[in-house]
């Protein structure tokens, strides 16, 4: 929706494919063909797709610019740009300590943000349930770039040492049953009590939507920046659209 809002504010219009059931994809059309067709209808394509690499494939077949708005468990670069913008509003990004908490294996926003932060000499702290850690190949790539990554079992270990706390949703479908999901998810919940020991300038970010990861009581604290972060999605995406269509 934020891309549509961005396009409208730029004075343009957007055509949304909407649900898969309502379009040719449901009839078995390949993504390649869909992209070729849509290239004739629009000046740019914004694609969100459940398969990793879908945006790169789209870029191969499109005759107009393609923006990746999330590809499976892969990347979410536009989210990262607005994440960086939100951090930059509060502090310089260089050499900061950032904690990523939640599902870091399938959470594409975490992958893109971690990659981007490696350009800023930031230190990464990761806190995730067993099996949902940062993918090994990504962690190795970041380490090769010189990024320091520290794994923690408990957010309490690190809450007083970080400048940014980036929270991601732990999806229920990753667990065999609801009981084990609730059991794990409760250990990754951000509460006002937890933040009592945080640095004064800490900011808490979340790509939204949230479920139970952040206690609503946190919303009133100065640390909470996730709604501002969400709002930032519009100007950042306006800038992206402008850039690719210039």
């Amino acid at each position: 929706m934020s891309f549509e809002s961005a396009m409208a504010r730029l004075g343009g219009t957007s055509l949304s494919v909407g649900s898969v059931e309502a379009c040719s994809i449901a009839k078995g059309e390949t993504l390649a063909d869909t992209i070729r067709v849509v290239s004739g209808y629009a000046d740019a394509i914004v694609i969100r797709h459940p398969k990793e690499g879908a945006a790169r494939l789209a870029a191969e077949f499109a005759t107009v610019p393609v923006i990746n708005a999330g590809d499976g468990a892969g990347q979410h670069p536009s989210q990262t740009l607005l994440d960086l913008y939100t951090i930059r509003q509060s502090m310089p990004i260089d050499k900061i300590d950032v904690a990523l908490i939640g599902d870091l294996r399938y959470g594409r926003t975490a992958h893109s943000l971690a990659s981007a932060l490696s350009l800023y000499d930031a230190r990464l702290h990761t806190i995730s349930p067993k099996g949902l850690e940062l993918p090994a190949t990504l962690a190795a790539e970041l380490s090769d770039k010189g990024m320091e990554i520290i794994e923690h079992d408990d957010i309490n270990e690190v809450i007083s040492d970080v400048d940014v706390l980036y929270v991601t949703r732990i999806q229920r479908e990753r667990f065999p049953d609801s009981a084990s999901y609730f059991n794990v998810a409760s250990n990754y919940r951000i509460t006002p009590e937890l933040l009592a020991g945080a640095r004064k300038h800490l900011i808490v970010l979340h790509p939204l939507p949230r479920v139970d990861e952040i206690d609503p009581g946190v919303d009133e604290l100065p640390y909470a920046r996730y709604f501002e972060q969400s709002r930032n999605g519009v100007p950042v995406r306006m800038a992206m659209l402008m850039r690719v269509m210039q």
Partner: protein
Amino acid sequence: MKKTETTENEGLLVRRIKNGTVIDHIDGGEALNVVKILGITGTTQEALSIATNVPSRNMGCKDIVKLTNRELSKEEVDRIALISPRATINIIRNFKVCEKKGVEIPTLIVGLVRCPNPGCISNTNEPIQSKFNVLPKGLHCFYCDWVITKDLTSHII
């Protein structure tokens, strides 16, 4: 008896070919994977001879593949470098070695290896071939960024 032993020692394990390609200095035990990489399935027309674990002065043991009436292109042979970088290619015409070349590791591999990531777009019905950049750390999927670091041959299509 002695004569028989001498004959066995001096004889060629696989006889000379008149025209075609000899791939020599393949790492011991990799010949069958080389054949797989070249797409030779047994249903193709070429006569194929394979010698495995042949004693070699420089390599300890090596494999050799001889392919009759087919001259391999550079692109084809460079794929072999992924599993056997010391391999040498001899193009044979009328029993003579007309060209001799080493293999070079290519920078891009197209349509040879299947991405192990089940969520990768290259594993769907899209009209594309798999594409991997060859990096020092392994094969990097152009589409989903997955990196194959080991057991490459099990991913060959």
